[in-house]
């Protein structure tokens, strides 16, 4: 899993753990969620899962599954969510999830 791009400096544009790359990846996962109707949705860091995308909590379960499929053990979404209160989950932005995923990937790289 080690490549030139991922062993160089943190935040390298285009690297897997770069926030922009993670955002594009998560946006793709969201658009591909079954039954969520987000095929053409505009998704930015500020987008709210609940109010903007109108995702039901069961859609977030599916998203957590997509993240696990893509990133494997390196990103533990269950752990991230376990630390949030219900109202924090409702107010969750795409950017918050992006930052968590990017930081997890960097931490996994550091070993």
């Amino acid at each position: 899993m080690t490549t030139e791009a991922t062993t160089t400096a943190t935040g390298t544009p285009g690297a897997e753990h770069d926030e922009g790359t993670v955002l594009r990846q998560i946006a793709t996962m969201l658009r591909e969620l079954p039954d969520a109707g987000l095929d053409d949705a505009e998704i930015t860091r500020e987008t709210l899962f609940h109010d903007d995308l109108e995702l039901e909590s069961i859609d977030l379960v599916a998203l957590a599954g997509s993240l696990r499929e893509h990133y494997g053990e390196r990103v533990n979404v269950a752990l991230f969510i376990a630390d949030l209160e219900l109202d924090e989950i409702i107010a969750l932005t795409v950017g918050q999830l992006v930052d968590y995923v990017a930081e997890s990937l960097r931490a996994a790289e550091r070993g």
Partner: protein
Amino acid sequence: MAKIRTGDITTHVQRLPAGAAGGTAPEGEAPVVVFVHGLLTDSLASYYFTLGPAFSAAGVDVVMYDLRGHGRTDRPRTGYQLEAFVEDLAYLLDGLEEERPVHLVGNSFGGTVAAAFAAWHPERAASVTMIESEPPVAAWTGHMAEGLAHARRELVRDEAIDWIAEQHGAHTARLSRGAGRILASTTLAEDIPSGRVIDDDLSAIRCPLLAVFGDESGLSAQVPELEAKLPDCRTVVLPRQGHSVLVEQPTRTRDLVLDWVRAHHVPGRRAAAVAGAAR
């Protein structure tokens, strides 16, 4: 997304093995907890984002699933009697090859399903936790018939949804609209009150039972009766708390149920269950 064939439908299930959400996996056989969610506005997400990860981190094998008609499990038009929900769970445990007796934890209607499962599959139930639930007795079907008929009348009306949005916010209004869709497209409202029940003496429930209530919901009035009828029963009534115990007091609920499961965990029950079945 894991889907498992359970009789005539496909059921959405999520598992979190012990230690998967941080913490450490226990030595020896871990207890297994099956979380059963409530009716209409609910799905396995209520546990996936609350108790599920906490239990996994505490060394429990966690099973969460969507009841028929809910979440990402199939929604047939008919077939919502209590025994259908119970058989789905039996099929699910078969499909997961789960041989350990399970600790069932149910919220509201989920607690009724849990108690019914323990009554009708006693060899597979290690304990039952009911959070703001009634056991599946005749009086329960009466309460459900009333509540469901009212919900089916109201939740299809836009004015009712608008009122809910004003009183309880957009989130609750959206959940209510989803509930209205289930009621309008299925026979659930008639089926649930017409299903199988257990005798009023509760003698069918033979495993230990924990019942948690909020003192403001009205359901806590069952406490003396539960304690009198069940030989191994613990009741907890939370002060200044309504029906939404799980949502409003997740930490308290987690601690109560974890302590309960640990106290009733008998490692090696898998072997004992097999030997028991052979007798």
